[in-house]
């Protein structure tokens, strides 16, 4: 119910009044009616009492006329309707009534019994006690309520009249009070409504005094204040609106200009990128030919002057190539970012191959390149192999440039930051370091360190900038760090990657073999130790010569690994260094140096193997294996590991297809392959490549990505559809558009970027053929041996097994275990599966002293079948 204030006030005033009036009226009427009822009742009771008393004698004496008189006198009272007297037997004696009164059912009836009360008249106590009262009769009195009813009606009427009158006065008074109270409030409410509707000039009339009057005055004052403020605000808003309109107009015009400028800039950037891409291809293509042919010239020329000139050409070409690469990558990063691969790859091999590329400048300066994987870091990671290689190349290349002596340590460890988990690749050199001033602008593009070395070394100044951006793009970070005890520069590359172990089992296991290592450089010593420990050999790496000599005589080493510092560049110097190591035993020795070939005179029967630093893990383990077991192997199959990979007949019997539209590149590639006794077919587009691939089964197909008619990718897809086992190597000069996507990896077995490197190319060919061709695998099956070789192998195994039987009979268990180990090595190498399995079980039985079982197994080994 939505009532206004005036009706509410009226209700507020009237309702209690009405309630009180009703209650009081009802109470008064009820009281008066009750008094009337009580008065007539009292009158009846009183009259009855009197009648009882006065009639006692008459009833006692039977004086009926007296009773009648008594009744008649009683009827004088207006409310008495009837009086009756009866004797003690109930016989009616007198009955007097008022004829004018109606005998209604509402009349009141009173009945009284009349007794004769005895009195004591005798002094005989017993007589007095035995007396009792006697019923003389009864009196009936009827009281009429007619007059009472009339009086009650009168009372009710009067009460209602008084209540109505009082109520009317109350309502009138309430209306007057409500109106006088509500009037100013209503007018105030109307004024508020007007102000709400926007009429700020509206004012409430000041009709009353007191609190409401003050309220109205206060409200009017507030209205005036609001009106003034509103006007002031409107003025301010008007001014602000005008300013805003002007500003918007200016902004619109500026935005238009900016849009035009941005559009122009984007167009320019696109044109720039296209231009650079075209330039890249156009520059790199002839450069490829220059570099290739210079390499050819280097190998064929004899005079030192011409070789130097050609070296200068090659160096200049490489620098030009690096410059173009850097500019292109940086441009691409700035314009569009870089597309990253996310594939599982061998991080160790990635870094090792990068270091191998930088081995020549490092070795030339006599610097040690040390790769150290911490013990808790696995070899495999997931990410973009090419970009990691690129960053490592930049960092190590810089380190080589700025370091004259000492070493460059490339350390791979797990991040110690609990939040940023991943790996950290640290490149630390022993150079002069980087000053505080230079370090601030180190990662800015085109910035070079302002010193003599920089000017001497040259460079684009883009390497660190590119590396920084690439690391950030991979979710990592590249930073220059300071260490208290290190004077050289230290770069840390953080990558949020997890490393994992290889799924393939390490095939080089030298369990129980004692290997003694001499390495002066502590980092290199730790690196070589970590590498050899993966083969389960006993590795001794003393840090002092005295310790080395002690171990040499006491630990019965079966292999010596002697590392000559890289600063020794000449054979004579190396020999002098080696002479400082006194060795009076004939022990297989692996010498590590910084030069390619080592030729020194040694004592009689003292044989050594040479390995150039930096070495890869696989190369070191391979050389270690052959040095440990070369006696057995040499007696059986000669020394196949000494056969040079770079022999002219490396690719004898292989046939290649080269799909390349550039004639110079065709000839260059063809020349490299044919010198390795390979056969080569040439085509200059994808369509022909498909035709040739369908007709001929090629060992490898080289596919240029950009060719007329049909590109290399489309052609490769078609060829793979026809022959899913076809080996295809993509050739491209576009280092920006990556081919190493998962789709292309299915199509292409490898991607080589122009300009091509001959050694890289041959390594990749050999690797791919080893995976896919049995003729070039490391381990050899006995089926690949000719009759003579097979015979020698059989003889070697027979000698070893005979010695094993002898040692078993003499219970020389140590010798027996050693011989079993040698047999296992030969059987494993030549993949004689049954013999390998038996020998493994035999070794297990010997180890656990199960000699009965060992004897049974030795018997089965004795009857081995080499085929």
């Amino acid at each position, binding site marked *: 119910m939505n009532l206004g204030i005036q009706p509410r006030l009226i209700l507020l005033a009237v309702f209690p009044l009405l309630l009180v009036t009703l209650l009081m009226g009802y109470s008064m009427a009820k009281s008066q009616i009750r008094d009337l009822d009580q008065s007539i009742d009292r009158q009846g009771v009183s009259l009855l009492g009197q009648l009882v008393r006065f009639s006692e004698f008459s009833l006692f004496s039977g004086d009926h006329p007296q009773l009648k008189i008594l009744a008649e006198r009683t009827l004088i009272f207006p409310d008495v309707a009837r009086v009756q007297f009866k004797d003690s037997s109930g016989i009616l004696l007198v009955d007097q009534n008022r004829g004018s009164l109606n005998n209604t059912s509402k009349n009141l009836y009173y009945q009284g019994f009349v007794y*004769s009360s*005895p009195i*004591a*008249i*005798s*002094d005989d106590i017993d007589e007095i*006690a035995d007396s009792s009262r006697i019923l003389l009769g009864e009196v009936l009195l009827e009281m009429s309520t007619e007059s009472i009813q009339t009086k009650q009606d009168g009372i009710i009427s009067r009460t209602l009249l008084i209540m109505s009158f009082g109520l009317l006065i109350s309502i009138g008074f309430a209306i007057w009070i409500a109106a006088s109270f509500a009037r100013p409030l209503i007018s105030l409410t109307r004024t508020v409504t007007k102000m709400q509707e926007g009429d700020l000039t509206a004012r409430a009339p000041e009709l009353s005094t007191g609190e409401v009057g003050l309220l109205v005055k206060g409200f009017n004052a507030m209205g005036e204040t609001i009106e003034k403020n509103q006007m002031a605000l409107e003025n301010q808003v008007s001014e602000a609106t005008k300013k805003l309109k002007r500003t918007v107009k200016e902004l619109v015009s500026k935005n238009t200009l900016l849009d035009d400028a941005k559009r122009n800039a984007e167009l320019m950037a696109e044109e720039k990128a296209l231009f650079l891409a075209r330039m890249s291809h156009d520059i790199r293509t002839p450069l490829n030919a220059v570099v290739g042919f210079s390499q050819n010239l280097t190998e064929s020329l004899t005079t030192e002057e011409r070789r130097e000139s050609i070296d200068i050409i090659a160096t200049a070409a490489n620098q030009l190539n690096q410059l173009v690469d850097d500019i292109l990558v940086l441009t691409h990063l700035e314009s569009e970012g870089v597309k990253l691969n996310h594939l599982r790859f061998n991080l160790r091999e990635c870094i090792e191959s990068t270091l191998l590329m930088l081995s020549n400048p490092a070795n030339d300066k006599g610097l040690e390149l040390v790769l150290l994987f911490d013990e808790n870091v696995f070899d495999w990671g997931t990410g973009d192999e090419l970009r990691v290689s690129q960053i490592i190349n930049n960092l190590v290349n810089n380190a080589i440039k700025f370091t004259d002596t000492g070493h460059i340590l490339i350390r791979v460890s797990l991040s110690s930051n609990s939040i940023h988990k991943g790996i950290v690749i640290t490149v630390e050199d022993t150079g002069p370091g980087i000053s505080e001033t230079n370090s601030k602008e180190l990662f800015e593009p085109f910035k070079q360190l302002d010193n003599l070395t920089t000017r001497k070394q040259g460079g684009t100044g883009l390497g660190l900038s590119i590396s920084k951006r690439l690391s950030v793009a991979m979710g990592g970070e590249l930073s220059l760090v300071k260490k208290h005890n290190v004077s050289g520069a230290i770069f840390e590359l953080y990558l949020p990657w997890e490393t994992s172990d290889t799924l393939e089992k390490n095939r080089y296991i030298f369990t129980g073999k004692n290997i003694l290592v001499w390495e002066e450089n502590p980092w290199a010593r730790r690196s070589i130790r970590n590498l050899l420990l993966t083969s389960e050999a006993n590795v001794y790496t003393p840090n002092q010569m005295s310790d080395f000599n002690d171990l040499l005589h006491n630990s019965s080493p079966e292999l010596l690994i002697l590392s000559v510092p890289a600063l020794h560049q000449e054979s004579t110097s190396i020999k002098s260094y080696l002479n400082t190591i006194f060795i009076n035993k004939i022990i297989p020795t692996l010498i590590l140096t910084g030069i390619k070939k080592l030729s020194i005179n040694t004592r009689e029967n003292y044989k050594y193997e040479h390995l150039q630093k930096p070495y890869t893990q696989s190369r070191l383990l391979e050389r270690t294996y052959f040095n440990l077991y070369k006696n057995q192997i040499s007696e059986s199959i000669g020394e196949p590991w000494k056969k040079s990979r770079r022999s002219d007949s490396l690719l004898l019997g292989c046939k290649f297809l080269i799909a390349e539209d550039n004639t110079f590149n065709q000839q260059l590639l063809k020349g490299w392959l044919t010198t390795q006794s390979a056969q080569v077919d040439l085509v200059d587009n994808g369509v022909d490549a498909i035709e040739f691939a369908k007709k001929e089964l090629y060992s490898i197909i080289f596919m240029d990505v950009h060719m007329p008619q049909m590109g290399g990718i489309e052609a490769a897809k078609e060829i793979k559809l026809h022959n899913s086992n076809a080996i295809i190597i993509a050739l491209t000069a576009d280092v920006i558009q990556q081919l190493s996507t998962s789709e292309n990896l299915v199509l292409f077995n490898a991607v080589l970027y122009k300009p091509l490197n001959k050694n890289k190319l041959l390594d990749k060919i050999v690797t791919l053929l080893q995976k896919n061709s049995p003729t070039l695998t490391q381990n050899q099956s006995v089926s690949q041996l000719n009759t003579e070789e097979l015979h020698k192998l059989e003889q070697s195994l027979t000698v070893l097994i005979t010695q094993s039987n002898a040692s078993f009979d003499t219970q020389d268990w140590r010798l027996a275990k050693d011989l079993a180990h040698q047999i296992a090595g030969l059987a494993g190498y030549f993949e004689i599966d049954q013999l390998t399995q038996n020998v493994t079980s035999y070794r297990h039985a010997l180890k656990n002293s199960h000699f009965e079982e060992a004897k049974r197994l030795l018997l089965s080994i004795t009857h081995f079948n080499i085929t």
Partner: protein
Amino acid sequence: MISVTKHTVLIRLLLCIITAIATPAYGRDVLIVMSRDHANYHKVVDTIQAYFVAPQHQFPSPITFSVLTLNNNGEVKIPTDISPSLVVGVGGRAIKSLRENWKTHPHIYTLISEKSLPVNREKNQNIKNPWSAVLLDQPIFRPFKVSEELLKYKGKRIGLLASESYKEQVNASLRAHPEIENSLQISWVKKSEDVVRKAKQLINTIDVLVALPDPTVWKAENAKWLLYLSYRKKVPVVGFSSSLLKAGALVSVYSKPEQIGQQTAEVIEQWALKKTWQGLHSPKYFTVEINDLVADGLRTPDEVKERILNMEKDSL
């Protein structure tokens, strides 16, 4: 009240002591049976016992008294060591108990109305044992004498309302006092007649109304109306009891309990002395008393009242 109780206790104690130290009575043990435990009865008993304490009434072998009181049902627990020679019943209820419990003992009934007696005045039938009764009923001439005194100052006629059963006594009294007869107007009431109507008629013709303890006329139920009628006609009533005096009689001639006790003690003494003691004994000692309120209402002169009161000394 306290002094009286102490006195009574002391007397009882003294009697007990005397009884205890006395030599055994030669058949003079008296048992008093009270109808109720009422002051009037105790007054009678006390007066009797006090009577024999006086030296002039003492015997060589003293009379011993035992007192029993009936309960509300009219029964009494009789001690086994009591073997009375005489049983005195005080009050009307004691008569029945005496006749049931001590059938062969000599009885004295005292403080009773004649109408309470189970025997006829003339024929001593139904009672085989010797008995005597000391009555409350005053001799008829006593109220007549008082009435005559009243007539001296007002009126001439004495009215009497009596039943036929009372006729003999009235006549006997008139024969003894013939002077009364001249002023006496008697209205005889039969059992079937309305006493009040008869009284109305009589009162209209007399100046003094004499009330007799006639159970047919003066009853507890109608006494007040008879008094009322008399009073309304300014006819003084001469009553026969202290109760009737209080009810509205102008003057009453009656015997107090002490006076009855005195007379009863004298009868016992006669019994103890083996003298004549049996028979009905009208009250020997009496009291004349005036209701002053009624006297004022009837405007009775003081000299009249004084003369009437002096009549008590006259040994009527």
